[in-house]
């Protein structure tokens, strides 16, 4: 009998604890709202409360923790809960949004995804942060659904996309200038191969490597057609454009892929980012495709003596089209329904406008600053990238006109093309259909 009673009690206790577990999602402290109104003046030192920051890009975790430490001196009353993850950030974010636990600061990609999270994002226009934000970054934060207005995010970093190459190998092969046309590139590959090096390492196992390569070709196709990249992408989304109408895509890009496979890794679809970095840093391969500013630190960690060069993709026979691409491919949003919005805004404004915050980008995080700044950088890709864009101009950040859903599908289509399971024309047909299906209409 005793046992029965005991188990009944245990059952009840377990059921109860399960219940309380579900209800313990605590709402924001009641005091937070009041303090947000008090702090309307924008004076951060009087702020109090919590900022919940849930963002991707864990590679900057150390730098952001340093930033948060520094902010404690400015606003002692503010606690910043910083959380980051590498894997599956979008899924985790969606789970949080749906359970009503909207982070005060959260990330997405820039451009098209700004609209996806529009309902949750605060329009930063008119905030002090806009005074220092790089216009190229700000343009990727506008909402196309609202007619290209507003600024619904800010960036941790700008970025450079292009070919990362090994200067020593180029020198050994007797190539003094980086090839800027398709035929010059083919020549260079012959010379490099003759010296016993692999001309390319491709990373084609990663779907995102493809988007970083084809965006230069999309830009060239738009230029040749006399329209903007955004207009060209819109035409594909509406299903009005055909890949075969644009020789830059139909001929040049597929020839580029064929060459990358011919002169590249022995097992192209098995080479992922880390194998690509290893092949490049160990001096086996002369050029790295689909990468940009973010690989430099990793490669130097493997081989500190590496002499890194950086240039745009040779996409046509016109050397002027060989441009690096700059811009910001990710965005941090401020939740517009934040319980202590002003506290969050003060932090964000301080990040972009204070002397410490401005210097943080280059000195602590070591990134391409997303702000108007002439601070020098130690990184070769950033130095050469900014020199090249000053000299020849930089291409539009075409990847941000489409969602990653589309880029991932396109990467899979191109992988099938490289694997030989589909022909070039089949690949083009799938690209036309899927682009309209995924990014069109909705």
């Amino acid at each position, binding site marked *: 009998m005793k046992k029965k009673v005991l188990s009944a009690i245990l*059952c009840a206790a377990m059921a109860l604890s399960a219940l309380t577990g579900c209800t313990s999602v605590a709402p924001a402290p009641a005091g937070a709202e009041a303090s947000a109104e008090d702090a309307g003046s924008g004076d951060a030192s009087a702020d109090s409360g919590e900022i919940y920051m849930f963002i991707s890009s864990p590679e900057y975790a150390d730098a952001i923790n340093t930033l948060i430490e520094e902010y404690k001196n400015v606003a002692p009353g503010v606690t910043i809960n910083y959380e980051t993850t590498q894997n599956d950030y979008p899924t985790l974010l969606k789970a949080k949004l749906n359970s009503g636990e909207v982070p005060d600061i959260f990330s997405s990609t820039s451009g098209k995804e700004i609209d*996806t999270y529009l*309902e949750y994002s605060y329009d930063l226009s008119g905030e002090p942060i806009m005074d220092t934000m790089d216009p190229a970054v700000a343009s990727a934060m506008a909402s196309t659904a609202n007619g290209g207005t507003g600024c619904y995010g800010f960036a941790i970093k700008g970025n450079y996309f292009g070919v990362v190459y090994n200067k020593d190998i180029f020198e050994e092969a007797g190539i003094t200038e980086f090839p800027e046309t398709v035929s010059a590139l083919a020549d260079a590959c012959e010379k490099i191969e003759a010296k016993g090096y692999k001309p390319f390492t491709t990373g084609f*196992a990663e779907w995102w490597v493809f988007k970083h390569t084809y965006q230069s070709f999309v830009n060239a196709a738009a230029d040749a057609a006399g329209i903007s990249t955004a207009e060209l992408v819109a035409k594909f989304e509406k299903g009005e454009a055909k890949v075969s109408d644009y020789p830059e895509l139909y001929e040049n890009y597929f020839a580029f892929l064929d060459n990358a496979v011919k002169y590249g890794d022995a097992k192209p679809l098995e080479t992922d980012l880390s194998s690509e970095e290893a092949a490049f840093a160990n001096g086996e391969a002369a050029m790295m495709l689909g990468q940009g500013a973010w690989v430099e630190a990793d490669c130097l960690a493997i081989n500190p003596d590496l002499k890194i060069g950086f240039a745009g993709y040779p996409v046509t026979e016109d050397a002027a089209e060989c441009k690096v691409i700059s811009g910001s491919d990710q965005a941090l949003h401020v939740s517009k329904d934040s319980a202590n919005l002003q506290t969050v805004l003060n932090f964000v404004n301080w990040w972009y406008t204070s002397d410490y915050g401005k210097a943080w980008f280059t000195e602590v995080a070591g990134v391409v600053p997303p702000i108007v700044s002439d601070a020098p950088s130690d990184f070769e890709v950033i130095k050469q990238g900014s020199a090249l864009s000053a000299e020849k101009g930089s291409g539009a950040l075409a990847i941000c006109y489409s969602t990653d859903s589309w880029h*991932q599908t396109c990467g899979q289509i191109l992988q099938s093309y490289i*694997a030989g399971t589909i022909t070039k024309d089949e690949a083009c047909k799938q690209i036309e259909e899927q682009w309209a299906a995924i990014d069109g209409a909705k």
Partner: protein
Amino acid sequence: METLVFTLPALFLVTMMMYIPFLMSGYYSLTEWNGIAKEPVFIGLANFRELFGSGSSFAGTIFFTLNYTLFFMVFSNIFALALAVALAKKFRGANVFRGLFFVPYIMSMTIVGFIWKFIFMKGFEKLFSLTGLGFLNLSWLGDPSLAFYSVAFVGVWQSLGFYVVLYIAGLKAIPEDILEAAVVDGATPMQKFFRITLPLLGPSVTTCIFMSLTNGLKVFDIILALTKGGPGKATYSTTMQIYQEAFTNNNYGLGSAEAILYFIFVLITTQLVLRIMSRREVDL
């Protein structure tokens, strides 16, 4: 009274974690929702119509999953049974070997996936340079026709230990006297196995086939770790397709519709197999 109270906590948790989410995804399958917007839009059966339309890749992933499941069921059961027969005998180190085969099963699928990814990519390369054996130089994860076998092989390798344990338990339950009687009657070892051991293993076989069927149909993490469904869409299982549609493509409604369809599909398949298997069992 007692039965009710005792099952209540479990019932409560299962309701919270399984039934309610199931009903919710039933509702979401009738909506157009990206998983982010505050209000889903009700669109009736349009999602299901899209899945049966021509452009959908859903059917292709079902085909892959069925292939995988078949491969997985056949090989994990055959190998597990063979190993179990060998390991059920009493010999020195039998326990050690049983342990060895069980170790992969207690490791997380993701870790097993990453270990094998490393073996396929770096290990094989090194072995090729040492031995010169041609098959080691194939692109096991990068070639669409080979990737299927790599994924299925790792799946079988990982879960083999589990089925071995089930079969050993089944073998131990077979009364020795029947086997001895068969020997006295002059049965060969082959006859002993196929006429006595295998029929009496019926319940174990049913359990193992059923478990391998559901595990095969649920395959997800091992593929994600090894190939991410690539190259192209060569190793895309239905579970990955649902995940991709709902979370990557932001079509939560369509993803839910796929999940519901797949649920019905799995329900029918498993019931059919269970019906067939239990009809073949024999009693002593």
